[in-house]
């Protein structure tokens, strides 16, 4: 076990902490107050995911036994039940309501997918419907989890899977789709920010959009014909990301810029300078340059924050 009670007592005695603050923190160190918030939320989230996974297996294994219409109706009723639960408890929300709502959203996704395949509805349209449906739900319930589902469906509609393998794909069409999705998210974020000043969705839009844009430019860099354009795109995006990091005091954007920038340059180097000595030498130089650059930027970042 670990307890910082001595340090907190010193801080109180030195006048760094006020007695009420110190008393609260010391109580936490003595475990007189011990919150199970994280454990409860984690249990509820894992529970919701298990139910969703079970429903998925159920659909796969019992296509013939149960019947298409029955599955569609049961899933719709279950999803409606989850949404109704969340709606009825919106004024006295408990720690598990978010997970129940998320389960409802995932059941709607599964149901829509099922209906699309059974009644030959266009899969793309289904994903677009889900993107809109989950977006409406996200705003209605102020849920970032539903917003994540909506963005996932939107990316799916555009043909993007959130898998690491796509980074090593050289499909230019996929890269363009990633850029389009990033642009849509950037526009959505701007509209959301202007329409709702107290929005909590901005970080979700920002991090997903910048990640997709970097993935798109890395796919360009991996493609033989567009390698140089890809590197230039990545570096330009990195510069924008760095400026944004300093403007908003969000260091993650600085890290994205350096990491993706280094990856793109090295991919270009490996292609342009093959050989057992030159390639690792230039890779080493770029990695050292990246570390030094990030160190300097990080120091400047910290001094500004202070």
């Amino acid at each position, binding site marked *: 076990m*670990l307890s910082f009670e001595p340090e907190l007592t010193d801080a109180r005695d030195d006048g760094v902490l006020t007695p009420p603050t110190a008393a609260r923190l010391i109580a936490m160190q003595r475990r007189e107050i011990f919150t*199970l918030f994280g454990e409860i939320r984690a249990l509820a989230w894992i529970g919701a995911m298990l139910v969703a996974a079970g429903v998925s297996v159920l659909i796969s294994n019992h296509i013939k036994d149960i019947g298409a219409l029955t599955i569609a109706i049961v899933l719709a009723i279950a999803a409606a039940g989850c949404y109704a639960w969340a709606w009825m408890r919106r004024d006295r929300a408990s720690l598990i309501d978010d997970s129940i709502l998320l389960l409802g959203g995932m059941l709607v996704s599964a149901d829509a997918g099922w209906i699309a395949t059974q009644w030959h509805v266009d899969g793309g349209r289904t*994903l677009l419907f889900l993107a809109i449906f989950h977006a409406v739900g996200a705003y209605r319930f102020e849920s970032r989890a539903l917003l994540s589902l909506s963005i996932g469906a939107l990316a799916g509609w555009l043909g993007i899977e959130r898998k690491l393998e796509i980074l090593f794909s050289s499909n230019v069409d996929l890269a363009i789709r990633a850029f389009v999705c990033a642009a849509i998210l950037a526009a959505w974020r701007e509209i959301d920010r202007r329409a709702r000043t107290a929005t909590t969705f901005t970080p979700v839009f920002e991090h997903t959009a910048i990640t997709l844009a970097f993935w798109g430019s890395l796919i360009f860099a991996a493609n033989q014909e567009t390698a140089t354009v890809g590197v230039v795109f990545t570096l330009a995006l990195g510069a924008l990301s760095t400026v944004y990091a300093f403007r908003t005091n969000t260091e993650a954007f600085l890290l994205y810029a350096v990491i993706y920038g280094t990856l793109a340059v*090295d991919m270009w180097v490996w292609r342009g300078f093959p050989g057992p000595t030159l390639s690792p030498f230039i890779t080493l130089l770029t990695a050292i340059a990246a570390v030094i650059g990030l160190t300097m930027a990080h120091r400047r970042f910290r001094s500004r924050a202070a």
Partner: protein
Amino acid sequence: MRPTIAEERAHAIAGQLDDWELPAEEHRALGKQLATRWRRNSPFVAAAFFGLTVFAMFALVALCKSIGATEFAAAAIALGTGEYMIRRRRMYGSGIESALWIGGLLAFIAGLPSTGEAEALLVIAAAFALAAWRMQNAIFGTIGVVCTAVYFAAEWHRAHDFWRVAMVPLALALIAIVAKRWLFSRPWIDSFWSYVAIVMPLVAEICGRIVTYDANGHLEYALPYAILGVIALLAGLHLREHSLLIAAGVSFAIMAFELHDLVDTPLEWKLIGGGVVLLGLAALVARRLRGRTAGFVATPASLTRYDELLKLGGTMVAGQAMHGKPAEPEPAVTGTTGGSDSFGGAGATGDY
């Protein structure tokens, strides 16, 4: 040269300041009081530095090999640079020097003649232990312990005996649970025992499964995890320690996995049933703790610093699995016309 106990504790407190929800004035004043001579980074930034430096280490090793300077030269350069950064630049916990240290030791091991013996795992474990001690890094220490447990599994694998192989990691998990009872002055040692308690049941299960070549669940295998889970749960509740509650969760999850074959119910109903039980349990605990202000409470706090990130990332990935595969990108295919006729999720996909 490394941080003193007081400095290390100051670093640990500084790392928790944001979670303590202090008034801005007190936050600033305490932060100032906790400042040490060491240059450190937040875990997220340190991870980025660590990744970039590991990348550089790979290039350095490849370069040294290509010019005939061997891995030992790369090891010497890395360890020398790491020590320089610690002693002269006062970098400790920046991510760079720890990557140089472990990278240097692993490069040294890579340069040794390979015999293919399992003892190599002990050498790697020793490297991680040394790096853990030098860098006060609990993750390196845990990897060292995992390598040691895997060594015993590799040594005894011919016996195909689950108990023999699982015994070492399970014993280590138990030792870690007991160790958490003591107050440690060095935070990294406390974190080390926490990680060992969480990871070792998983190592026991994986090693046991591999050496027995058996994918079926067994009641007798589930039993030690149930006992370990109960011990960790009781210890976690008694000591009010999050890491032990997580360790209990891991043990119970493995127990459920071992038992899943023994109940003749289709997988989908087991998953749904398990999910409903967890949701119900969460609801019950939340209800019991509602309105409490002392003892066990349910006031907002993070289990890890990246709770929200993990949840949203997991939801986005799992959500895509639920609503099916996206259209395969083909030239001249627009997003709206791309078909999506594969559905399923969480390990179950199918084409209809």
